């Protein structure tokens, strides 16, 4: 397979020690700095800035009411404050406006928890606590993800059993290990934009095009090689931050790889597509740099953006990087895959779009 041959060359040709150092050491350094320096400010956000949850008890029997009060008291000491709400509608409205992390409606037939899905970490914690409570009473916890949408949509109910890994809360190192890794993946858009320019600079594009390989084979081979190369970096980053910095990547660190790889594929495709649209290295590099920086900001690479409001929050809500970050955090800390599946679907879809676009332009173009 000539594509494999080209992919191997792509890997072999990447013998730039400066690049290797940059791509590994820099993110690790940033993780270390941000993870340790901001730890206190970080924890405060989660522990001391307590999580507030509304609840309603509907026709409870005496035992339920009693145990619930006990539970609420215990929860207070873990930093989660349950406040009673007089009406369901008002309560959900307040959840929607992010004044509360969520609302739990408890009865003896079950429990419905509606959470603001931008407060992923808070929700994860609350859900974990509720699960413990439910377990104690052998209720099946009925969880609903309401988010900001209209109450009617709560009709989509999911029955899930949620398993929470102890009560370990994500600290700053855990957070930054994840977001810095995804940010570095984002930066690989820059190298992807140079994919073909690299060959053009060395004039080897002449050799490639005069050989009996099709443009498609060259494109796929180079993309595959680039992907493999970056994938290895990602794995190294994950392992390093896990074993050297003790960052929490979940019980099975490698389970997050599909999400990371989906983002990698999207980012590479994006880089290549932009370079083809903007015809060449210079302009594409600048544009991608700007986009990457903005994305990193709005996606939560520098500080957590969950729960932000106003125009910043509005933009942050639509950020693809943010989506991937949220997905990763939810999988790691709450074992929940719903956001992850959405993120992967988006990433793969966008990747397909970008790669398709790039392929079409490449075909029509003269030369690589």
């Amino acid at each position, binding site marked *: 397979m000539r594509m494999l041959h080209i992919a191997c060359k792509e890997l072999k040709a990447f013998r730039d020690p400066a690049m290797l150092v940059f791509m590994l050491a820099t993110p690790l350094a940033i993780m270390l700095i941000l993870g340790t320096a901001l730890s206190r400010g970080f924890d405060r956000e989660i522990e001391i800035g307590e999580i507030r949850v509304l609840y309603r008890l509907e026709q409870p029997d005496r035992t339920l009411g009693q145990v619930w009060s006990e539970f609420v008291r215990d929860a207070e000491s873990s930093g989660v404050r349950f406040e009673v709400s007089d009406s369901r509608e008002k309560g959900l409205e307040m959840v929607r406006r992010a004044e509360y992390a969520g609302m739990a409606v408890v009865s003896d037939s079950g429990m419905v928890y509606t959470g603001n899905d931008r407060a992923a970490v808070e929700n994860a914690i609350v859900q974990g606590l509720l699960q413990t409570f439910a377990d104690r009473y052998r209720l099946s916890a009925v969880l609903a993800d309401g988010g900001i949408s209209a109450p009617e949509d709560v009709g989509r109910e999911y029955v899930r059993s949620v398993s929470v890994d102890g009560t370990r809360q994500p600290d700053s190192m855990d957070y930054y290990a994840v977001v810095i890794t995804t940010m570095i993946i984002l930066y690989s858009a820059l190298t992807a934009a140079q994919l073909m320019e690299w060959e053009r600079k060395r004039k080897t594009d002449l050799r490639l095009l005069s050989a009996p390989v099709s443009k498609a084979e060259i494109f796929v081979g180079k993309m595959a090689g680039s992907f493999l190369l970056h994938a290895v970096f990602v794995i190294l980053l994950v392992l390093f931050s896990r074993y050297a910095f003790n960052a929490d990547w979940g019980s099975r660190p490698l389970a997050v790889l599909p999400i990371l790889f989906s983002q990698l594929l999207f980012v590479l495709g994006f880089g290549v597509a932009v370079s083809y*649209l903007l015809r060449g290295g210079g302009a594409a590099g600048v544009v991608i740099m700007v986009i990457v920086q903005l994305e990193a900001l709005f996606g939560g690479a520098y500080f957590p953006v969950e729960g932000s409001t106003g125009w910043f929050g509005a933009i942050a809500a639509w950020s693809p990087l943010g989506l991937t970050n949220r997905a990763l955090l939810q999988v790691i800390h709450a074992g929940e895959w719903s956001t992850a599946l959405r993120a992967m679907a988006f990433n793969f879809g966008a990747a397909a*779009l970008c790669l*398709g*676009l790039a392929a*079409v*332009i490449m075909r*029509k173009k003269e030369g690589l």
Partner: protein
Amino acid sequence: MKAEQHPAERRSIALMLIALASAGWLAVNAGGSELLPECLLVALLHVSLRLAAGLTAGWPRLLLLMLAAAVLGAGIAVHPAFVLPLPIIVYEIASRIYRPGWSILVALAVPLPALPDGWLLPYGIAAAASFACLRAFDTDGRRIRTLQDEMEQLRDKLRRTLAKLDEMEGYVRQSEYVMKLEERSRISQRLHDEIGQSLTGALMQMEAARRLLGTDRAKAEQLLQQAIRIAKEGIDRIRLTLKQWKPLPEQLGMHRLKRLAAEFEAQHSIRASVTHEGDLDRILPIHWKIIHDNAAEALTNVLKYAAASRVDIHVQVMRAMIRSVVADDGQGAVRIVKGLGLAGMEERAAAAGGTVIVDGSRGFSVTTLLPLDVHEAGRRNS
């Protein structure tokens, strides 16, 4: 391209109708005020499709289609009725990438499992109808394009035939000229023979008469009479031959060329000179015609483009090549666009196996190269 407009126009109208139908359906079922965002989405969709139809370049069109798809996606999130225009978008995108046949039905069937309840039938109908219509439009469009290509080819053929015709006419004129020359050489040959015969005969008689003048007067007179007779006959025959012989215009190509240069200089006050090098006799009449016509064309170009003060024509005969250069001292040009004049020069030269080189680095120079057969040479008259 006009051909692409019509099917695309019809497509967007079809889309508009479906969109309006679904909007109407919404109005009936969902109640008034919520309709505004949907309507905006429909309008946006329609606009982007119209724009996409107007563009023929590859990737901007694709981009707009993807934008339309994104808008549609947003629309579907708002209300499921937006799945109805989906088949059209999918078809459009697919046809940019490859030529979709029945395989597109598979792509259209993909959203089926994700449709909300009750939408299966409307979607199916919309998909089937869109597919049928779009296939028909596509076939139309393709047929129009094929016809256009054919027309282009025919036009090309016509042009080439006309050019060939022109060339043939040139040949005919050339052979006429050659025939004339041959005839003249025949005439001159005959003249030569006639004069030779007559003069020799008459001379013999006169010599004999002179010798007999002293001895046999009568015989001498007889011989003189014969000499006069032969001479008279000869003169008659010469006169006859001369009658057939019309005045020759300039035979030698070099004179013709010099005349061309002189006329040019007189008419346009640009100094024109003609020089030569090598054995001009080796140049055949057909070569002279090409040299002369190309020089005339080159001079016209000098007038038009060169802004020159002098033109030099140089004809050089090498061992196996004739080189004729028309060079001016004007502004020249770095890049030369081949116009009809140049193309004509090239075709003329190519008819004799030669070529024309145009160089603009130091003024304009038009060089006509004509190969010479080393053995045949131009010695047809000896």
